[in-house]
């Protein structure tokens, strides 16, 4: 362990924060996403859970190792705060802000064409597979964005 474990703690804090924030910064609405930065943000998203666990374990391990050796309350509090923040950023990394904003449909339900109260002028996405025909109203699809469905025996995903 290096002579200045507090530097390692701060490094873990900075990396953990960057891993949390970078994808949210790149992949957000009303911002042009260049293909390279998008590719990088997606890679971060894929490996982030594993990395955050490593960083949190490392930070806590560092804190435990350093605690008896450190002098002064201020240092102990500072180090604890660092480790706590690394853990916190790791936990926040598991929340997908965009899944909070856009509620997916977990159980889709359907009405027959006859019993549907939908206004005639409403726009729908119309799909037919074999003899099975289904309509997905655009005003609800533009909110939920995705419906995992099965139509005519074929698993499909309707998206908007």
């Amino acid at each position, binding site marked *: 362990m290096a002579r200045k474990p507090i530097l390692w703690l701060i490094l873990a804090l900075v990396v953990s924060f960057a891993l949390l924030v970078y994808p949210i910064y790149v992949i957000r609405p009303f911002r042009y996403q260049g293909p390279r930065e998008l590719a990088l943000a997606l890679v971060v998203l894929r490996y982030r859970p594993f990395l955050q666990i490593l960083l949190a374990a490392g930070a806590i391990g560092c804190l435990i190792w350093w605690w008896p050796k450190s002098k002064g309350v201020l240092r102990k509090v500072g180090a604890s705060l660092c480790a706590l923040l690394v853990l916190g950023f790791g936990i926040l990394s598991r929340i997908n802000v965009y899944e909070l904003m856009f509620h997916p449909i977990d159980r889709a339900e359907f009405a027959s*064409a006859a019993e549907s109260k939908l206004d*005639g002028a409403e726009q729908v*996405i119309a799909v037919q597979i074999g003899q099975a025909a289904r309509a997905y109203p655009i005003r609800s699809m533009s*909110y939920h964005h995705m419906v995992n469905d099965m139509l005519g025996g074929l698993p499909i995903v309707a998206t908007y």
Partner: protein
Amino acid sequence: MRDEQTGTYWQQITGLAVSGPLAGRRLQLVDADELSFALWKKEQPAGTVLKDIARFATDYAPKNWDVRMAKVPTVISYAQAGLGPRGLMLGVHAAGASRAFPYNAILKEKLIVDQVGTQPVLVVLGPDNRSVRVFERRSSGQFYRLTDPNALLMDAETGSQWNFQGCAVSGALKGTCLAHVEALKDYWFDWRNYNPATTVYGIRQKIR
């Protein structure tokens, strides 16, 4: 979009996997139309409709969402040749080519006899003056618009009459149907962004 099995990220507009174990694979597009509910219901009385989720229904877009959306700024533009970023288009893919048909042109002409790449097509406005479908035609196929909502088109060659589903309801070709062509209602900026080589109906100059 992300699939739960592999964690791969997929691009909605193209169906292409862009990051993850399945990167490079492509989802198969299912043929779909954007129609008015009333028109769809007439064609598919035995069909089913997705129900609103009650607890979110108050947050759904208002009925005039398309009017409001037309004013929302875009981060990329591709404005040119009189095309604004939020110009509404019908984007068509056929024979490896892309072509955009301005919605206003479709509403005005009601029937467009054209070609996408090497594929001759028909762009047809439905009897509701809102829904649009695109069909394949033979290169010699000359079609005309009729006023009967159940017999929307007539082809000059055989005199057969065709409905909005692209099926002949009378004449020599009665019972046969035209092949459906993949079409997407899209804003100009988005269509041009994903189809850099697109042409535009009604615009002669090369698109940047």
